[in-house]
């Protein structure tokens, strides 16, 4: 959960619309760890994740007027923006090149035998938190919210029919909500 807030979300949004740097600093302090956790889940590389996080926050600042408070919460918008940026990074050639160099340098690294592409999502680690959540439920949440997978890809990944993705999603989130209560 976020730290004790100095601003409520409404105030924060209003200040950010007016390019208030203090509000932005506050935004970073409160949301960067959650977003960084999400990026790291996808990239599993600290330095690269930090680069993406930095880029994401600059983009949040520049495109803040695109955020429509009537359509949803601020975090949801930031998470999806960050997620899309991470997917772009995964697909870019530069990333692959950089990763190879890095892998050569750290040949003892556990990922050294893999090229860092979208394929790397094959290994989604078991999270330490929310242990009450069934692993398959946690998996579908990670894939959908923090993995950058499409409905189709999730279906293939879990070897379930496309129509079942929705109902599984529903069940997993309902379970999560129960645990959080």
């Amino acid at each position: 959960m976020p730290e004790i807030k100095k601003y409520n979300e409404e105030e924060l949004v209003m200040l950010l619309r007016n390019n208030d740097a203090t509000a932005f600093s506050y935004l970073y302090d409160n949301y960067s760890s959650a977003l960084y956790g999400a990026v790291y889940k996808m990239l599993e590389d600290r330095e690269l994740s930090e680069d993406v996080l930095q880029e994401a926050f600059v983009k949040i600042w520049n495109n803040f007027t695109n955020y429509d408070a009537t359509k949803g919460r601020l975090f949801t918008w930031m998470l999806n923006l960050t997620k899309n940026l991470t997917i772009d990074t995964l697909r870019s050639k530069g990333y692959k090149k950089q990763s190879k160099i890095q892998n050569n340098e750290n040949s003892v690294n556990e990922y050294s035998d893999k090229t860092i592409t979208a394929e790397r999502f094959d290994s989604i680690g078991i999270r330490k938190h929310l242990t009450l959540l069934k692993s398959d439920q946690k998996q579908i949440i990670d894939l959908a919210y923090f993995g950058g997978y499409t409905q189709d890809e999730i279906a293939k990944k879990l070897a379930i029919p496309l129509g079942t993705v929705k109902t599984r999603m529903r069940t997993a989130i309902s379970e999560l909500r129960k645990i959080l209560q």
Partner: protein
Amino acid sequence: MELNDIISSGLLELYIAGLTSPEESLQVEGWAKEYPEVKRELGSIEAAVESYAFSESITPGVDVKDKVMKAIEMQETNTIKAAPASFRNEMKERTKVYSLPPFYKWAVAAGLILLLGSLAFNYMYFNKYRSASTDLQVAQNQLQSQKQMTDTMSNEMNVVTDKYTLPVVLNGTPHAPDAVAKIFWVKNSGEVYVDPTNLPQVPEGKQYQLWAIVDGKPVDAGMISTKKGVYHIQKMKSFGKADAFAITLEKTGGSPTPTMSEMYVMAKI
């Protein structure tokens, strides 16, 4: 779709994940507006995902924030620093509205050049037209005065050459032995013309007056115009009969009777 079906479909969860198609997203947004329950459900899903994300937070390196803050500060200096975001966006939109594809830019530029060129030519030609117009006016005036002169001379010639015209030479009296004047008396119409060309210069405030002697008495035949020192053959009063013609120098405007001492020329018929 029933409200319960919407809520339990799983579509709302996918929408929050950003995994719905554009059509599905529009549908969900429509439901959210229509049903407060859908809006509330979406809010709960978001809150759950947010809590989940926060529970899996990892603190990034401390230098990341510095980099971010420096990056946005640099961007701020590069844009209009003092203006609020809304104004800057407005500026962006305005720029968008007025920006044209390259072809049109060239077309507009070419159009402007042509327009300016045309204006310059218009100005030049207008000036030419104006001076030409003035020249034409001058020429027309000259032509007009020439024509008047010609008409006058033509009329004078007609008088002189008319077969009914009786030319009469008025010779100088002892008072003015060098003075000479001519009368052209058109007998059939009675018109009398005088040619005062050879009369002496008229003194200030004086004027020549023509007299016809009819039945022994002098009758006023009119004042002779000698404006600007130019003497023309001019029409005088008409006479059916006359015994003699004489010209005296009188005060401007003439006298009822001739001043005999100032008689310059005379002739008997």
